[in-house]
């Protein structure tokens, strides 16, 4: 295990500059911070310009339906220091609006379009077609936790009924080879 000097420096620089930033060093090369949704562009810009986190690795969204929150996650990489910085913030699930950051990184546009489509999160001033992956979607955004994909699937698509003689594979094989099912396997058997 290394000393994690650079990781600590990064964390310190972020917490000192912004009041509302706090976080931990998760492990080598991983720093996780949490912040407020309002100052997200500022934090990202600071990380990019001052701390040299020039590479935008990933952007994700997590649905915490219990807390009525969406958590947005921005993952940056510093090619110089070789550190992965994970910046998180939460927004209200009822009124999911956050500032658009595709003027900081152009390719964030793609991620934001996907999150807009899959979670229904609005990004202020986001350009690009509304439909990115889905086509003619008329239900609630599919990646939200309250959307049930199995129900949707059985409502819209034809389920093929199983074969009438469908049996547990193990039973069939043992019958064919004339052997018994071993005891330890019996408790997993469906029949």
């Amino acid at each position, binding site marked *: 295990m290394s000393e994690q000097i650079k990781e600590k420096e990064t964390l310190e620089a972020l917490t000192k500059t912004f009041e509302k930033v706090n976080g931990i060093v998760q492990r080598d090369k991983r720093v996780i911070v949490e912040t407020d949704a309002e100052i997200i562009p500022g934090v990202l810009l600071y990380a990019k310009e001052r701390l040299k986190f020039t590479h935008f690795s990933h952007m994700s969204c997590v649905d915490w339906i219990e807390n009525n929150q969406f958590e947005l996650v921005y993952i940056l990489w510093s090619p110089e220091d070789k550190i992965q910085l994970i910046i998180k913030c939460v927004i209200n699930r009822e009124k999911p609006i956050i500032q658009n950051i595709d003027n900081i990184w152009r390719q964030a546009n793609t991620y934001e379009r996907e999150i807009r489509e899959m979670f229904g999160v609005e990004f202020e001033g986001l350009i690009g077609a509304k439909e990115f992956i*889905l086509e003619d979607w008329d239900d609630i955004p599919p990646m939200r936790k309250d959307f049930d994909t199995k129900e949707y699937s059985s409502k819209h*698509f034809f389920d093929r009924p199983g074969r009438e003689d469908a049996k547990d594979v193990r039973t069939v094989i043992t019958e064919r080879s004339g052997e018994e099912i071993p005891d330890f396997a019996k408790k997993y058997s469906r029949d």
Partner: protein
Amino acid sequence: MIEKKDSLAIGEYIKNFARKHSLFVLAYGTGCGAIEIPPTMTSRYDAERFGIRGAATPRQADVLLITGYLATKTLKRVIRVYEQMQDPKYVIGFGSCTINGGMYWDSYNTINSLDKYIPVDVFINGCMPRPEAVISGFVKLQEYIQEGKADGWRKYQNNIEEYRENQKRIIKNWRMPDYNL
């Protein structure tokens, strides 16, 4: 003396023989099964021995190979492509996902049974089917063609309303020109 009935049968035999030995497969990788098509066409498995070769556009193709799951967005394009193909045309469902949804049976974006939307002549099961299985599927199709049993395209013409109804259940925004006018 050859009677008229016999001569028709001979004509049919020759036609089927030619159709059987010259299958132009449309180059459309609809799903992940497309990864086993290059090995099938190249040196070890070499499907060209059986007269199977790629065709670039639907007008020239005989066989539509549905390689795996169909997302609803792709289904629309597949129907368009299928209707552009010239009769007689055949469909091979490739992989378990075309039979009952396979791995993605509960997904909101993939259809579960292909034969409700377009007629399928041969299914190849497995995820993924090996190239040997693909070739054996083609050989089965050849048998059906020779026997005159590969008539999915005729079934499609006769039951067009039923197929349309199923298709429109999924494709909400139906703007489809008639390609065969």
